[in-house]
């Protein structure tokens, strides 16, 4: 019998529909897998077996009664810990929110519950989604299932690692500068960032409001599209959410057709600075698309080179304001300063923020506070917003020439835990290929393009589409995926976790 955890979400859904398995079985299988391997991977901050199994039982009962609630009803899912879940802890990877249980569900969680997906638990992440390695989690790093000594990327390393390690067929991530796509790239999984506003942000603990976007982490392009359809669509609780139907992403993923499509290679995001093995897999993938009838054009987006700088002004500026609410007054951590008899509100707040926030968070709060301060606003925040406009113009011009744009997702394969922890700039460079999409609000998808020759670790292929045309990237992604699977003879599987010997790995 096939191990349920090795199935994609679409395959599980198919077997649920044919009543070959039950949701309780599928959910229990993943809970068992989590119990077996998460000690090594540390993808989860919180697992909720009771809640997940209760939802699974309900999904089974409804299916038995002939009322299946969605294509993915009964398929279990993991949710990044930055998303508010009623009755389950939500910490955003920070000590500041240790033990906080939200009294409400994020809109996307409401939709997952309504669609009948059991929620396995909450996945690890860099504190308040700041970082590209999940090493900035206050609860310890996650490990890359391909090599436990390496990072699974970040900030959503927990979600991608959970999917890569077969602990969950589906996971929710959030992508502010690449936090869905970059972890997908280095864990050999699929990650999709929908168009800004395509999935409600209501209930997502904000990092940078104008950049944040929730989306799917999966092992196949079709799974991503199926999940996108469940969580996407307009929400009256989020005024920036797009008031239009979800693009036909599932249809596009099923058709997987690229004939006659113009695929633009972004000159500025490839080649120099990219690991040779990553670059090589990228070029081969491009050739596979050409073989399937696509036309390749080169496009230039000159202002993308300023994207990183603009991003690291806009993000901390918004974050400094968004994180101001963590002041020890109403919820979360409260620390009294040492040696003060009756501390003032300000003293308690300062002591709490000192103890509760990690270094990276403090670094960005200080950066953002400075960038917004009077006298510096125009030089920093104002200038960054202008760059943002130019990047959007570059995208618009590039999309005149090409239907979708492509690049490697991340410059390198997974780096070792600790390698870049003391060098924020090196860490920031990891998101150089993914950031422009967030600045412009366009959708992006990453799928595995193979293993780099030099280290045998996964490389990612990024596809960007015009805003609100998310279906284009799913169509191209599915076509490439099909070609690659044909070539590989099956999906890529992390070697260390491939067998049952996982517990014998010396740590």
């Amino acid at each position, binding site marked *: 019998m096939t191990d349920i955890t090795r199935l994609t979400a679409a395959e599980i859904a198919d077997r649920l529909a044919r009543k070959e398995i039950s949701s309780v079985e599928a959910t229990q299988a993943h809970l068992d897998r989590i119990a077996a391997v998460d000690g090594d991977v540390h993808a989860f901050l919180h697992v909720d077996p009771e809640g997940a199994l209760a939802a699974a039982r309900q999904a089974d009962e409804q299916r038995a009664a002939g009322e299946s609630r969605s294509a993915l009803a009964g398929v279990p899912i993991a949710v990044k810990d930055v998303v508010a879940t009623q009755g389950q802890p939500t910490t955003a990877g920070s000590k500041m929110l240790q033990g906080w249980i939200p009294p409400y569900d994020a809109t996307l969680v409401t939709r997952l519950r309504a669609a009948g997906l059991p929620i396995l638990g909450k996945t690890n992440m860099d504190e308040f989604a700041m970082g590209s390695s999940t090493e900035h989690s206050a609860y310890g790093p996650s490990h890359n299932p391909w090599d436990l000594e390496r990072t699974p990327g970040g900030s959503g390393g927990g979600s991608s690692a959970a999917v890569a390690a077969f602990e969950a067929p589906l996971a929710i991530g959030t992508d502010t500068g690449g936090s869905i796509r970059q972890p997908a790239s280095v864990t050999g999984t699929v990650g999709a960032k929908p168009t800004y506003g395509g999935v409600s942000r209501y209930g997502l603990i904000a990092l940078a409001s104008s950049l944040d976007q929730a989306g799917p982490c999966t092992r196949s392009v079709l799974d991503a599209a199926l999940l996108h359809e469940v969580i996407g669509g307009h929400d009256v609780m*989020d005024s920036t959410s797009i008031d239009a139907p979800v693009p036909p992403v599932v249809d596009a993923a099923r058709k997987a057709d690229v004939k006659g499509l113009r695929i633009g290679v972004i000159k500025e995001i490839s080649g120099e600075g990219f690991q040779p093995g990553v670059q090589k897999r990228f070029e081969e993938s491009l050739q596979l698309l050409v073989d399937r009838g696509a036309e390749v054009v080169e496009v230039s987006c000159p202002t993308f080179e300023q994207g990183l700088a603009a991003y690291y002004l806009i993000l901390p500026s918004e974050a400094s304001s968004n994180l101001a609410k963590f002041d020890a007054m109403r919820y979360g951590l409260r620390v009294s300063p040492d040696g003060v008899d009756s501390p003032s509100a300000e003293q308690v707040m300062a002591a709490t923020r000192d103890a509760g926030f990690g270094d990276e968070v403090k670094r960005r709060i200080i950066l953002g506070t400075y960038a917004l301060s009077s006298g510096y606003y125009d030089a920093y925040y104002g200038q960054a917003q202008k760059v943002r406009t130019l990047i959007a113009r570059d995208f618009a011009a590039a999309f005149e020439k090409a239907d979708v744009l492509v690049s490697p997702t991340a410059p390198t394969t997974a780096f070792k835990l600790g390698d870049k922890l003391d060098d924020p700039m090196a860490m920031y460079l990891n998101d150089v290929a993914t950031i422009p999409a967030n600045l412009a609000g366009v959708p992006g998808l990453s799928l595995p393009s193979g293993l780099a020759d030099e280290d045998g670790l996964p490389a990612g292929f990024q596809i960007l589409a015009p805003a609100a045309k998310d279906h284009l990237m799913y169509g191209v992604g599915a076509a490439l995926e099909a070609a690659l699977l044909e070539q590989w003879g099956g999906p890529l599987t992390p070697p260390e976790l491939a067998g049952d010997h996982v517990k014998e790995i010396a740590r």
Partner: protein
Amino acid sequence: MSVATTDAVLPYDEVLAKYDPVMGLEVHVELGTATKMFCGCATTFGAEPNTQTCPVCLGLPGALPVVNAAAVESAIRIGLALNCQVAEWCRFARKNYFYPDMPKNFQTSQYDEPIVFDGYLDVELDDGEVFRVDIERAHMEEDTGKSLHVGGSTGRIQGADYSLVDYNRAGIPLVEIVTRPIRGAGERAPEVARAFVATLRDLLKALDVSDVKMEQGSMRCDANVSLMPKGADQLGTRTETKNVNSLRSVERAVRYEMCRHAAVLEAGGSILQETRHWHEDTGVTTSGRPKSDADDYRYFPEPDLVPVAPSRELVDQLRGTLPEPPGERRKRLQSAWGYSDLEMRDVMNAGAVEIIEETVAAGATPAAARKWWTGELARRANAEGKAVSDFNVTPAYVAELDGMVASGRLNDSMARQVLEGVINGEGAPTAVADARGLELVQDDGALESAVDEVIAANPDVAAKVRDGKVQAAGALIGQVMKAMKGQADAAKVRELILQRLT
């Protein structure tokens, strides 16, 4: 906590001899929308603490604001009534600062892109002179929560054992109306300040966008005051007196600050730019927190909200809902009612325009309507510490009463007795008069014999009247009225007496 009351002040005349005052007024108005600015929570005043809250107005992690369209419409109507331009496109901004009663530690407000701007309000002073106050802008924002400091003697945070926060008010929509610097008011500056707030209050009431209750904080005024030496053109340093909550206090606070500034300047000192607190009981201001240009709110456009772009159709449609401006309405009614300027001002000050209008509509003469509402009823309400509206007296009752006087059924003192009965809940005026047997004696025979008896009993007085001292008849009239137990028409009594004696 000691309240400094030792600040020297210069006599007002001396202030004016040397300085020209410049004022800037900022008026916060809580809008009377059913729900909050950015969420669906109720805005009812006086609810149990923290019962009208949700993840959005509590600023819980992950919650997002959504703009209340009704609040935007109210703001636009206020702007149109203040002769302002309406922005075709504007945004909210975040004003970042830390305070325990502010859930997000930033206030969602408008900064350099207000919804309405560049208007004016004509303000009529007590002597009828009209002073134009330029409006710089009016913008939308959300209110903060309220702190309650428990344990200290002053109710302030200093010395308190602990503090409680009520977030019911957090997120209630506010419109802040900001004037341009008001110059040239001279000695009338305090009066202009009061008249501006009063006129604005009447306007907002007519717009029906707020209950404008200063004592409940739904309308609050911050008064900026500075002095310029006469002949100078450089603005002086200003102080901002916060949250002044009555019309009278606005006037007094401006005057006090003028006198205090002058005393400081005369002593060779300089004014510290700061916020000041107004003390109603002692009539002074005390220092609040220093406010300098170093205050850095780090404003930036609110990324959680899409811009507000009211269509021109909507603006035109809202323009069509504006009420007659209170000033024009007042002139129209004054002319229709034939009131003198003084009478009209009394009516305005008593807040009795609407009720007089209804009473006249119900059939009373304008003179009688004014007499009852601003006279007897206002006096009684004042004496009993009540509002006129607390009495069971309707415009229709007053009109009925006036009709009974006009038809000769009641005289003035009897009408007052009837009104007494109405206030006591004895029913409509006619019913009260019936029940109490109040009716002028219409029988001329009885009246004439009473007159004859009184003349006969007072030959000395009668002689005086015969000699031409007509005013002496008053004593006779009084006696006749007494004999008739008040139920006679005094004018008729007088006529009969004079008939007989002249």
